């Protein structure tokens, strides 16, 4: 009976398999092949081995884009994790009636089109008409309007802030779910043993939350390394000032789709992939240490 039905399992999975192979796996493999070629003309590619990768390793613009991406990600991720942790712990410990409402509002920015968010913040931080300058001026915090988007440091800072704004609510929901999953028995027995709430936080909640934090860290790393939408709209497609908003994917986009250099674009995408894989593994290692092997 079971055997007779076995073909149905495969049949039901077939659409997934076909579409995955054609639209996901094949493009990935084809990209790799392209990264090993030289583009003679629009449609002729000659195999050259790893030449593009040695070029990439010496490409100053690429390393600048790596640095920019990391700066923007770190300036966003660290405050994001701190805010999310504080929120998750507080909202779980004090059973506030309005917790659900606040969580819902904090998550809202995550759902909105990044292209619109970039345009919105660009308008808010615009030099002459932006609301931020108007408010700071009205409050007497600044004496003259600041030209935010002409400074690389501000441009990167604003990008990080936007990403923080979009993601802290999401992270806090994930961490809340992680805290909720911690067994109530462990917590109760610690109360019986006389642990106060600080001890509980540092000795029980945070250590047991480690897998969830690794999840947040690694997914944020993967997303952060692919940052593109906000820098694109915030800089009106220019990556300026001083190429400070040139992230890795932005560089990939410029090379492949503005300069039509597909092999080099594909090489950048694999460079990006290698960085993601290496650091994901590293973070897993650091966060779990040797205990994982038990």
């Amino acid at each position, binding site marked *: 009976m*079971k055997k007779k039905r*076995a073909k*149905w*399992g495969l049949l*039901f999975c077939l*659409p*997934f*398999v076909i*579409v*995955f192979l054609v*639209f996901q*796996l094949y*493009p*990935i493999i*084809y990209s790799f092949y392209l990264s090993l070629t030289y583009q003679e003309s629009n449609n002729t590619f000659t195999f050259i081995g790893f030449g593009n990768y040695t070029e990439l390793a010496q490409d100053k613009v690429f390393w600048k884009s790596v640095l920019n991406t990391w700066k923007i990600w770190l300036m966003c991720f660290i405050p994001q994790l701190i*805010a999310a942790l504080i929120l998750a712990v*507080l909202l779980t410990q*004090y059973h*506030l009636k309005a917790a659900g409402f*606040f969580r*819902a*509002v*904090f*998550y809202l*920015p995550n*759902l*909105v*089109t990044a*292209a*619109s*968010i*970039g*345009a*919105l913040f*660009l*308008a*808010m931080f615009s030099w002459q008409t932006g*609301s931020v300058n*108007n*408010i700071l001026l009205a409050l007497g915090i600044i004496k003259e309007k600041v030209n935010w988007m002409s400074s690389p440091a501000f441009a990167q800072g604003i990008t990080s802030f936007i990403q923080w*704004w979009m993601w802290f609510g*999401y992270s806090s*929901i*994930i961490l809340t*779910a*992680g805290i909720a999953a911690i067994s109530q028995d462990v917590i109760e027995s610690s109360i019986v043993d006389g642990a106060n709430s600080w001890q509980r936080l540092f000795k029980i909640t945070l250590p047991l939350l480690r897998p*969830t934090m690794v999840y947040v860290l690694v997914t944020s790393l*993967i997303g952060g390394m*692919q940052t*593109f*939408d906000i820098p*694109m*709209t915030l800089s*009106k*497609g220019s990556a300026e000032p001083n190429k400070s908003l040139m992230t890795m994917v932005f560089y990939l986009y410029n090379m492949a789709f503005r300069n039509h250099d*597909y092999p080099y674009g594909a090489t950048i*995408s*694999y460079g990006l*992939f290698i960085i*993601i894989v290496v650091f994901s593994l590293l973070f897993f290692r650091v966060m779990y240490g040797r205990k994982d092997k038990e």
Partner: protein
Amino acid sequence: MKKRVSIILIYILLIFLLLICVFPFYIMIINATHSTQELYTGLQIIPGRYFFENMGHLTDSVNIARGFGNSFYVSILSTALSIYFGAMTAFGLFEYKFKLKKLIYTLLMVSMMVPGQLGIIGLFRLSRSLNILDTYWPLILPSVANSSTIFFVYQYLNIAMDDDLLDAARIDGSTEVELFHKFVLPLSKPSLATMAIFNFVAYWNNFFTPMILLFSEEKFTVPLIVNNLNNGMLQDLGAMSAAIAISILPIIILYAVFSKAITEGMMAGAVKG
């Protein structure tokens, strides 16, 4: 007493964060109702009377209604495909024992873990050789293989599916295909609804892929139009604010209706994942 003080402090923190979250949207709505001249004179904090005029300027320079139509078309079709085939694949993996099952699991994992941009140039070149560049095909078709949906529904089936029910239906003469449509789809409805909301939002917001695959402006989705306007096509500040505001509106309405389902769905996914 001490507890009351901490609760007040927590509320202050929460309200502070709330203001940060809501403020940009507030400014966006206010600015959408003021003329460009008014916006140049300084900060506006109360609504003005220029919304319809701004909308007029906006629709003069771009066919935003068409953009909405395109966005709905792509997002709804993609969502429907991702849900239907996601449930089908999940059921196939859940219910049957067959030879290639392990391999398909592996494919599923690969699909979940590989970053989206890795194959983007390959996808572009593939679409070009298939002659489907500047069409919606390469945007919509890949949603048949939406791995996170498959994974989520699979988890749900493990908890909610009753094998006896399926066997009873088989004895009554249902074919496997009927089984899927009559029992599995209705039974997994809660998980499908959650994934439908998430996928719709994701497809609606999709920016990078359509930007690369679409060229004709009449085919542009809302994010592409906003990007174009932002890049200098629209100099009128009031109209630009109106464009941003209405591009965000559908998602905000969707969220107002489904926010509970969305946040709960996220938590459910997080605990299992």
